[in-house]
């Protein structure tokens, strides 16, 4: 059975920026060892001829058209924007 050590849990928790209590470390070590053992059954399948799938849409490199558009309206060489201060003190 593949199992996680206490150091594995602490190391990964550090990478993930999680502060664990001692009780959590013990609990996760126990629970995750069971889960890791369970997921290890994947080694039974021959996948040598398969490519990995990272998503199922079949789409690649979706970009919008890079069209040149005029920028904001200008007047006297300045951009015109909405006023942010609307009252004079």
């Amino acid at each position: 059975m593949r199992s996680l050590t206490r150091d594995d849990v602490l190391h990964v928790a550090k990478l993930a920026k999680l502060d664990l209590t001692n009780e959590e470390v013990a609990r996760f070590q126990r629970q995750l060892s069971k889960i890791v053992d369970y997921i290890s059954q994947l080694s039974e399948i021959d996948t040598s001829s398969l490519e990995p799938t990272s998503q199922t849409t079949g789409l690649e490199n979706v970009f919008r058209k890079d069209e040149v558009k005029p920028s904001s309206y200008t007047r006297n060489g300045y951009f015109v924007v909405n006023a942010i201060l609307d009252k004079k003190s």
Partner: protein
Amino acid sequence: MDLPLTIKDTQDGLINKKFSAVELVDSYLARITKYNKELNIFLTVTENEAYKKAKEIDKILGYKDTKILSDYPLLGVTVAYKDLFLTKGIRTTAGSNVLKDYIPTYSATVVNKLKKAGAIMLGKVNCDAWAQGSSGENSDFGPTQNPWKKGYVPGGTSSGSAASVAGNLSQIASGTDTGGSIRQPANFCGVVGIKPTYGAVSRYGVVAAVSSFDSIGCLTRTSYDSQAVFDVIKGSDGFDSNVRDFNYLKPKNKLTIGIPKEYFISGLDKEIEKSLQQSVNSLEKMGMKMKEISLKTTKYAVPAYYIINTAEYSSNLGRYDGIRYGESRKEFGQEARRRIILGSYVLSAGYYDAFYLKAQKVRSRIINEFNQAFEEVDVMIAPVSPFLPFKIGEKINDPLKMYLADVFTVAPSMAGIPGLSIPSGFSKSGLPMGFQLMGPRFSEYSLFSLGEMFEKATDYKPNVAKL
């Protein structure tokens, strides 16, 4: 007033002036006030927004002609949003204490689309935190009750969504489905749930769970209503580059329906199996051709799924650093911590090839098997869950047992194909049962149409749990 059960009932009532939209909102809010404390469905009730929209609708009803429903296909339909959907100016928690005070600055595309179509938001509903779980118990705001039987889970992670429709605290609800999170709670609550094809509906403004799986769908009381909502929410918005306006397969009246034999495992509840057999018989009587098929890799779907799931979670939850928004990482609950740690582990040096890459290859194999099967059959029928809704607390201390609740829903999620969860009756103990129809990518309309034909043939009546 008697609350309408279907979208058509709602709209007939409004157009024929049986009730106004404001009266409709009055009745729903009264019901929420009366039952929510016990059921723990709504986390936020948006009374002001609901009345504002209702008044707007009553105004439209005053001057609009018969074209009104083509302009507003969901006119007057009350909706509860899973609290994973961002709503501008309204707290959105993802079921987690990390976002307990988070107020979004924009709304999800689905929220905007439903609003534009005339739907009335009643509020935000409970879910497993970050959409992690299979029972609704992982919410940091407490578990939601199954309206059909108190003390039992409504399923998850769209727990409040399914329960709100089952108890008629809302006409429809939005949901998200990563590995079964719409189909399974719909099944546990006796309502219809659609998990669309991956990429059919924009995820923009929906808190990310497992990005290569996340599908946005809805929960309703009939297949017809499911289609009506899907019609509104599908399609590209320019903000989710996985979404395209695809060509959907055209529904047929005579279908070959596959029964995958690997979905009839020894752990399958006997009552569910019997109910499914009855549904198969009904489909045969309707003139459908049934065919046994094999999806050999099914048993490896759950382990492969939980590798990819936790890996993508560990990445997606990395953004919650408590600096820009939300509380600190100390607020993450147990399941989120478990998945972040497991996900970081399977991605870490030395384990990436053995776990993550391997799981992605197994995913390819599962996709190939589905593709092959769909050359022989148009759709498939299968159970949604191996067991009936269980008691709150029964499985919460054994995460692995909880993961196995997803055994029939994760494989189709791996392949990104759509699934429609349909109710088919009740167990002896009074708990809802049902089945799922799965089809190839973009076969949603075949599923809706078959669902409708099934409901008609079996004289299905939309109903509401007695509260």
